[in-house]
């Protein structure tokens, strides 16, 4: 019957209760929506990094990671690539030559990282070929073609089919240069990446560098991304002389960001609930003070203090928790719809692309966040009830009964 009384008491002042219930619903919606938005943005960022730069697993000569010396190649790279292509967990493999250099046009020069790739293999590993907005991704048969980012092209004031010169250190340590014709211009989600990365054919770069057979990096994309750690562990055993790294090892800051999302969610929801707590305390306090005579009567006829306390806590929990279904439903519907159509942030595209974020964010609502949110809200309700309940317990029945 305590449940019945508590539930009916909530509706004695319908407007006041609806305000609290709405505040809880809107607060939960705001918290969960923010988290869904950031979760979506980070998922997309990770996806983008994996698809355009990192892939799931990379192989390097251990010495290459520190100084990126031209000579620190994976000597038997071609045979490793062949073997990896036969692995049942592997979707695609691409061997790369990587060197730092300078790109010059007639107007200016800029520092870049030059990637020598096999276009056919690279298409399956990286999304850069899909990001080409002018020209093509090594579609011609000519030698010394280059694909550059739109941002770099703008900086160099060059257009499609213009010639640019790459200058870098060869295998022998001499400064060497090659003239390349722009075959394609790409625009990825990350404008910073676009400004410092250029792509040439593997063989063209190898010829100028003077490397034969070796490669600096092998990028591996798996059929199932969730298996990354397990597959990487197997490959590390298989190739002990090479440095085998997962994307989380290659980009620990992104892995960290992904990892702390849950904690961030609890902090944000916690702050929102803390603010809501004051509203709930106020409402419960008003309810208790208005019903002084009733509490006096209840204690007079024999309702003990633990029961009075429990009744007030129950009222608070029911009042607060009534907002949870509405909050979750509203969030699910909103995020569900936006997860399909995305949130268009084109007006902030410049700032977003600098950090590699897409213009359109698809929020992701994790079902696993519901239970902790429900428990946190219930805890807020219990904490909110403590002060009003203590207040009620201090009523003297003889005095309270005669309060108007």
């Amino acid at each position, binding site marked *: *019957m305590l449940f019945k009384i508590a539930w*009916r008491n909530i509706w*004695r002042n319908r407007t006041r209760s609806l305000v609290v219930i709405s505040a809880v619903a809107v607060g939960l919606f705001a918290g969960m929506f923010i988290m869904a938005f950031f979760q979506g943005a980070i998922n997309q960022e990770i996806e983008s990094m994996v698809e355009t730069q990192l892939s799931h697993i990379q192989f390097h000569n251990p010495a290459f990671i520190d100084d990126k010396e031209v000579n620190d190649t994976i000597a038997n790279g071609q045979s490793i690539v062949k073997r990896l292509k036969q692995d049942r967990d592997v979707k695609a493999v691409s061997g790369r030559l990587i060197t730092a250099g300078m790109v010059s046009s007639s107007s200016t020069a800029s520092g870049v990282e030059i990637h020598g790739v096999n276009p056919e293999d690279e298409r399956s590993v990286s999304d850069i070929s899909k990001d080409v907005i002018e020209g093509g991704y090594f579609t011609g048969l000519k030698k010394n073609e280059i694909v550059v980012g739109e941002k770099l092209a703008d900086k160099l004031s060059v257009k499609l089919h213009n010639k640019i010169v790459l200058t870098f250190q060869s295998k022998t340590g001499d400064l060497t240069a090659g003239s390349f014709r722009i075959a394609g211009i790409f625009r990825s989600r990350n404008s910073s990446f676009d400004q410092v990365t250029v792509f040439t054919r593997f063989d063209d770069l190898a010829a100028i560098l003077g490397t034969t057979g070796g490669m600096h990096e092998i990028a591996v994309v798996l059929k199932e991304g969730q298996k990354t750690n397990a597959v990487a562990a197997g490959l590390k055993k298989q190739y002990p002389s090479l440095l085998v790294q997962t994307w989380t090892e290659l980009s620990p800051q992104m892995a960290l960001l992904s990892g702390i999302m849950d904690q961030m969610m609890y902090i944000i929801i916690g702050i929102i609930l803390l603010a809501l707590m004051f509203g709930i305390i106020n409402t419960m306090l008003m309810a208790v003070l208005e019903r002084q005579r009733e509490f006096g009567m*209840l204690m007079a*006829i*024999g309702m*003990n203090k633990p029961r009075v306390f429990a009744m007030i806590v129950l009222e608070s929990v029911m009042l607060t928790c009534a907002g949870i279904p509405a909050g979750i439903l509203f969030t699910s519907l909103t995020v569900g719809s936006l997860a399909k159509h995305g949130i268009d942030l084109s007006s902030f595209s410049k700032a977003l692309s600098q950090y590699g974020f897409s213009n359109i964010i698809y929020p992701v609502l994790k079902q696993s966040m519901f239970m902790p949110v429900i428990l946190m809200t219930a805890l807020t309700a219990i904490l909110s009830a403590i002060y009003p309940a203590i207040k009620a317990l201090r009523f003297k029945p*003889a005095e309270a009964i005669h309060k108007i």
Partner: protein
Amino acid sequence: MGNIIESHHLSKTYNPDTIPVHAVNNVDLAVEEGEFTALVGPSGSGKTTLLNLIGGLDYPTGGEVKIEGVDITNMSENKLIDFRLKNIGFVFQAYNLIPVLTASENVEFVMLLQKTSKNEREKRAVELLTEVGLKDKLNKRPSELSGGQQQRVAVARALASKPRFILADEPTANLDSVSTENLLEIMAKLNKEDNMTFIFSTHDQRVIDKARRVVTLVDGKIVSDTKK
């Protein structure tokens, strides 16, 4: 018959350190089982304070109250609540029903506090409400009942816990003459047939006329005590 209630040198003084008000002043009172006693006196004479002290709703500043030989003046608050639940029924001037419960739920509530089984609660609530003439109002909430009907529910609630006696503070003060007559008949019937002890404070001459013992208070002191 033995005394069900005894007070010895009972006193209650408000503001003892500033301007003392002796609401109850050295009262000796003994009430036997089955009495139908009215406490009368002008406003501020101490009727309600005396009822509160006898009912264990307030602590005296002097003297003692014994209920069936048990001194309740030194009981802790929690023990007093339990004592009231088991021994005393209350009827208040302003009915004081739980507004969100129906008439039968209000009556059942006290039995719920006593941990009576659901079936027994429901059965007794119907019996009691029938006894006070509200058989057809079992599922009505207080807001759907007249003042007289609400007070009859309050009497049924007071009886629900099978108390040793019922204290009623100005039970007819908010009732019209017909409702007052009905309530008095019910209380008198319960007193006569079930030997239920009633002590009530009142200003109402009709109530005083029905009482079999009239205790008059003035300035916290008993100035007359007459049995009819």
